[in-house]
């Protein structure tokens, strides 16, 4: 599998203090990758370093197989900045024309792409209005249109829904899903954990400038999760077999709830039930929300 983003010990220090430190990330092509972290954790610094707004202090990174700083690869990269500030004296259409020129798009491509991205972000009909008359949500949408203009293979979205209402957020999620279906890679930086949980294939948590954990959102919560087992009958012998592998939270006549230390203990748990002669009808770990994982990780670090 090709990597859209790869970083190795990528570090950016501001006056000796860390913006982000020794970041090692691998984002596969076609994934939606979520970066999570509290304010001041280094999320924006990492994004800015990757898109070329700041120069790394040390380490290396590559985007779509090209080293950081390569200008030509940017033709395939879209970026929605967090503050989405654009030249207000332009109309929406003129702004997109300007960005199309910056992407060195030819006239025919522009003619087809501009109406398309306007339609995707829901701004068709508003393109003749000046950007200064746009609402905050519309500005974020035109920013998204600029990012999608070159039909990029890799898109960096820094808080893409911060100014949008719930309907707008859903639309952005749909845009991201649509891009993913077309094999595009999305690097999403967001505070909205539920949003990240809904769309991301991979997430990483950053704190104090360092990545403290990363993985698939549906698997990350398995460590320390409570597992529910439905068996034919709960016997003392069965409980004795399970006890070394997991802490028994509760047990009934046919149900046991036990907390495992890591997700690797879950198959062992199933083996223990079957090995003791029990009949296992159902095994499921209770889903832990990304928010709980996020808060637990932050507490662990303190």
């Amino acid at each position, binding site marked *: 599998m090709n990597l859209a983003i790869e970083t190795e010990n990528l570090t950016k220090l*501001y006056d000796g203090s860390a913006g982000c430190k020794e970041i090692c990330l691998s984002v596969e092509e076609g994934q939606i990758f979520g970066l999570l972290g509290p304010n001041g954790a280094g999320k924006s610094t990492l994004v*800015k370093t990757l*898109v*070329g*707004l*700041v*120069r790394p202090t040390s380490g290396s990174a590559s985007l779509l197989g090209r080293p950081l700083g390569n*200008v*030509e*690869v*940017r*033709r395939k*990269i879209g*970026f929605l*900045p967090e*503050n*989405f*500030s*654009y*030249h207000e*004296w332009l109309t929406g259409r003129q702004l997109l024309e*300007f*960005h199309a*020129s*910056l*992407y*060195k798009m030819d006239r025919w491509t522009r003619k087809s792409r501009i109406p398309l991205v306007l339609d995707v972000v829901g701004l068709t009909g508003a393109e003749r209005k000046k950007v200064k008359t746009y609402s905050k949500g519309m500005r974020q949408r035109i*920013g998204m249109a*600029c990012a999608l203009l070159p039909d990029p293979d890799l898109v960096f979205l820094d808080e893409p829904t911060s100014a949008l209402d719930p309907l707008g957020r859903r639309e952005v999620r749909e845009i991201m899903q649509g891009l993913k279906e077309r094999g595009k890679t999305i690097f999403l930086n967001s505070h909205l954990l539920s949003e990240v949980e809904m769309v991301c294939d991979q997430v990483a948590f950053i704190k104090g400038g360092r990545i403290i954990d990363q993985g698939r959102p549906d698997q990350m919560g398995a460590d320390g999760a409570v597992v529910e087992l439905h068996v034919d009958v709960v016997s003392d012998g069965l409980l004795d077999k399970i006890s070394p592998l997991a802490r028994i939270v509760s047990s009934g006549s046919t149900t046991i709830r036990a907390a495992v230390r890591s997700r690797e203990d879950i198959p062992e748990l199933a083996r223990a039930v079957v090995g003791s002669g029990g009949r296992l009808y159902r095994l499921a770990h209770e889903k832990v929300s990304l928010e709980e994982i996020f808060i637990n990780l932050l507490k662990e670090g303190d």
Partner: protein
Amino acid sequence: MFTIFRFTFREAFSRKILLVSIIIAAVFLGIFGTGVHFAVKDIARSQNQMLASIIYPQLLLFGLYFGGFIVSFLSIISSAGIISSDIESGSIQAVITKPLARYEIIAGKFLGQGVFLASYAAIMFAVISSIIYYKTGMRFPWIWQAGLLFMLQPIVLMSVTMLVSVLSSTVASGAIAFMLYSVAVVGGVVEQIGYLINNLYLKNGGIVSSLIMPVDSLYRKIVHIMMPANNPLSAIQQMGPFGASAEPSIWMVAYTLLYVLAFYLLSVYYFSRKDI
């Protein structure tokens, strides 16, 4: 680079400062034209050729000096935020991340703003020269050279302002550019006084100020090109704060061009390394 050039040129027309500068220029040129009209009428009525030989050049000097001041004002005000305001607003973030090198952004902005300011200066110079020519009949054989130097004045100021704009805030770059312009203006007057009373310290003070900010020496060069010292009244014509008792050498013009180039290259260098 040409996208940034075209964009910067267009952006210059969208700024309120252009409207203010046009109004100020229109008011100035209106007053200047009216003043010249009535001054020439009075002198013609008196048929005093000597008076005409002294006053007509003074009218030209007055026009070029204050015309240059308005052009410089526009140059500093419109260039103060040329980079910094885009950084402060965040609008540069979506531009830098596009497939173009950072030096192209500086080159495009420099060219766009430079062409805009040079055009404004050219119009100002053309109107002032035309008023003097049509009202007084004064002829200017080297007018193209003088016009080009007049157009160079705002570019000198812009190059300095752009560098400060890369390194600092909009307010700071405007303030620093105005301070440097003041040094040049005061230095030019001090040098004139130095020649008037033959004081070496004052003359050297003027030279040093011209090296710090050569915009005033450009003005003195323009004055000499427009009014070459080829008649017995030249010394009188060049007296006063708007005259040029000594002609700056061609090396001063060469220094000015290198000065602009140096500030441009420094802007490229620092912007290429700047964290946004």
